């Protein structure tokens, strides 16, 4: 996107909308066990943050490799957390709630990183 195609209106509106998108995504992730929603849905909303960041400043300064490292670490934790809870033996209701919130948060982080990588890869590397 060239310099002259950037809209000032969109920049300002997205700057105002940033915290609300973040808040909505985290709300959906952290309340996934109480209300409709969950890790995948909230992660998809969180990936909209980085996509709208591209609309404001289309620079190539985003670090895709560190995003990918975060995604792989999140997947390792997704595999490890159920094993850990299984080996420790989940007992009370509090343990189960902790497990659900933790898994939802990890899946949300992983999905948002994955969708952001897909988007930036398409935008930066396929537009030739």
């Amino acid at each position: 996107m060239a310099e002259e195609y950037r809209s000032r209106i969109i920049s300002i509106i997205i700057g105002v909308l940033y915290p609300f998108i973040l808040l909505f995504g985290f709300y959906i992730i952290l309340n996934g066990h109480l209300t409709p929603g969950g890790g995948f849905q909230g992660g998809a909303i969180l990936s909209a943050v980085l996509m709208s960041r591209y609309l404001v400043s289309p620079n190539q300064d985003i670090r895709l490799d560190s995003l990918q490292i975060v995604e792989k670490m999140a997947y390792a934790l997704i595999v490890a957390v159920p094993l850990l809870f299984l080996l420790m033996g989940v007992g009370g209701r509090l343990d189960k709630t902790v497990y659900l919130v933790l898994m939802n948060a990890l899946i949300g982080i992983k999905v948002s990183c994955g969708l952001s990588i897909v988007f930036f890869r398409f935008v930066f590397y396929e537009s030739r």
Partner: protein
Amino acid sequence: MEWITGETVSILLFFIGLFGVVGRRNIIKTVVSIGIMETAIILFFLTIQGEGERVPPIVPLVGETVADPLPQALMITAIVIGVAVTAVSLTMFISLYHKYGTTNWHKVEVKRREQDT
């Protein structure tokens, strides 16, 4: 108009997508048709015991019949797989377009045969 239910609409959509896969030679249209078929399958599964006056399976269960939570939980997986399939096939299409310069399955086949010989 009571025949317009999720079931019949999803079956019709699935066959529209099938026609798009078998009847068109554009690669982009093939990818879009696969997406339509996935959507039809998701709609079909969501209407299994989930139509009409059933209430969602969330704890203040106000109502007599509750929708089946199992197909809904399975369809989250199906949506993720649909996203992944669409993204990977579009990426493969872009590589193929850089190599052969066409969006037609038939022309790609012809060009590949020419390059082999």
